[in-house]
């Protein structure tokens, strides 16, 4: 019962600290947004404005076919500002279907105007695309089978883009950061202020105090992970094909690992400044060499053992395998075992060196 009360108290203090909460969640989201905008899917999307002044079925079927094309965004242009947008580069082409453009079609050829910007490669590519689409419509109307069909096949069953690679990395990094700093900062602050000394006078066992802190931090990490995955999926279009339960299990195992490392930091650090220093010392190298932003399979030989010693790499790798490659948990069980072993070792260290007070009395 006192354990539950302590957990609830921790959650309340976390949830009510709006400022800390803001930073807790804004950083991973900012990271994601930043990298997403630079490398994300939105870059590949071409835009076309369609000025449709005709009511024929042909006009309708043309717009419909265009909107079916992957990575092409169709804007219906009623106001006639399509040309302006084209000049400013906000759309890549403007298609004009004048009233009566297909009178007596197919006996008389229909005439369609396509405006494009010759200085933009994407705009030029649009000519080809639109031409092909219209050609397809034409063939289907005059019922001629295509002579050549091209089926494009990717070497991978689902093509991975950089953002797909990045999301699991950012997720792993966020779990690491909130694990390393979150619990440790809270614990050291309370120790510095003498709150822990006061708690020591009550019958609340140390294990329950710590357990409650870990659970609270774990919940924070889970919310963080959920936010990141949702944003990654719905805003940046990351394909998440792995099982959500496997993903959740990995998130929990990974968080626990870094929370216990944070707990070791809290045991050694006297001040919150020391928490930051120690945290950076452990976290920074992992951020760069842990396979968050780029693959680390091709690092120089002498760096390999360092990379192998980084828990973040195991978390990032396993998250990647499960999230975007859809592998089952059994595929990453080596990674999971490493993370669990680190957690166990860190826990022993942390308990051994735990201090209720900043100075020995």
């Amino acid at each position: 019962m006192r354990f539950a009360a302590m957990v609830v108290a921790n959650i309340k203090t976390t949830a009510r600290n709006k400022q800390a909460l803001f930073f807790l969640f804004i950083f991973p989201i900012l990271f994601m947004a930043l990298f997403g905008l630079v490398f994300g899917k939105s870059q590949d999307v071409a835009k076309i404005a369609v000025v449709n002044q005709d009511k024929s079925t042909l006009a309708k079927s043309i717009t419909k076919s265009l909107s079916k094309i992957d990575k092409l965004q169709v804007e219906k242009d009623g106001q006639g500002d399509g040309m302006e947008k084209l000049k400013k580069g906000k759309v890549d082409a403007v298609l004009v279907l004048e009233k009566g453009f297909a009178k007596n079609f197919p006996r008389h050829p229909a005439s369609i105007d396509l405006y494009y910007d010759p200085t933009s490669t994407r705009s030029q590519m649009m000519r080809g695309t639109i031409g092909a689409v219209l050609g397809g419509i034409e063939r289907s109307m005059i019922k001629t089978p295509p002579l050549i069909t091209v089926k494009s096949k990717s070497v991978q069953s689902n093509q991975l883009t950089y953002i797909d690679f990045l999301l699991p990395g950012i997720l792993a990094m966020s779990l690491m950061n909130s694990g390393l700093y979150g619990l440790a900062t809270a614990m050291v602050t309370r120790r510095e202020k003498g709150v822990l000394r006061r708690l020591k006078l009550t019958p609340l066992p140390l294990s329950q105090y710590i357990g409650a802190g870990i659970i609270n931090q774990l919940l924070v990490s889970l919310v963080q992970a959920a936010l990141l995955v949702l944003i990654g999926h719905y805003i940046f279009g990351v394909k998440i094909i792995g099982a959500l339960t496997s993903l959740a299990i990995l998130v929990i195992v990974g968080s626990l690992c870094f929370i216990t490392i944070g707990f070791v930091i809290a045991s050694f650090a006297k001040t919150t400044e020391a928490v930051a220093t120690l945290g950076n010392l452990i976290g920074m190298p992992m951020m760069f060499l842990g396979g968050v932003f780029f693959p680390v399979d091709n690092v120089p030989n002498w760096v390999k053992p360092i990379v192998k010693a980084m828990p973040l790499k195991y978390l990032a790798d396993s998250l990647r395998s499960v999230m975007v490659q859809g592998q089952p948990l059994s595929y990453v069980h080596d990674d999971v075992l490493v993370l669990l072993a680190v957690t166990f070792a860190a826990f022993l260290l942390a308990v051994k060196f735990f201090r209720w007070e900043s100075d020995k009395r």
Partner: protein
Amino acid sequence: MGSIIDISNLVKTYGDVRAVDNVSLAVESGEVFGILGPNGAGKTTTLEMIEGLRKPDGGTITIDGIPAWPNPNKIKHLIGVQLQATALMDFLTVREMVRLFASFYGIRMGKSKADELLNEVALVEKAGSMINQLSGGQQQRLSIALALVNDPKVIFLDEPTTGLDPQARRKLWSVVERINAEGKTVVLTTHYMEEAEVLCSRVAIMDNGRVIALDTPEGLINSLESDVKITFTAKHPLDMQKLAKISSVSKLSQVDSSYSFYAGDVQKSIMSLLRLADSQEVKIENLNVAGADLEDVFLHLTGRGLREQ
């Protein structure tokens, strides 16, 4: 009534400093026991060893017959503690904090029960406020409430009124009196002799880690047999030479129209003073007689003031 706390030959050293130097004490059940002393006297160190927070280097402590060391867990349910440096968790309300602490003792404290306790320390109107928004006096009273959640036999208050304004101090005094009236034993430390005189049934005076005197406040003052200070003003100059001849009068002084002297025999010296003024046809005004207090006792025992100037 028997003693509830027994301390014998308690020792604690920090490097070269003997913070607590062979202290032996017995606190009676149901009393308010005060430890008075200047900064660094060893008050906090003594208290925290009794509470089980600091490990003594030597000596024994029992509370209600149970040794506080080596396993302080055994006395946790007997005691309630307010530490000198109060720090509590932010972002919890006063009521939530009280209920949380009760839960640590396995007590399921309802809202009304918590408010009852807060009422006892005159804090019920702040029950819904966040802890970080409390004033100094309110925080002290909250820590007293927290010390009371487990209905302990003994409560320890380490400088409960330091840093409070006179009004807040008086409010806290009445809280302590109420707690004591319920039959709880209170051990408190203070720098203020007035506080010890008002609240404590007995006072131990500590200096340099040692108990240098222990008695009721009256007993301590009486033991001084000290002189009283007599002050008055006179518009016309008064020749005091004759007064100086009375045996128990000393330290005559005059600044402008203000006069003062110390006397052992109050009655005799005042009679002489009045007769002297009469004969010289000088009118005496603002006559004042001040007795000794614990401050003087401390001055007498150590040759130093109780508080650093």
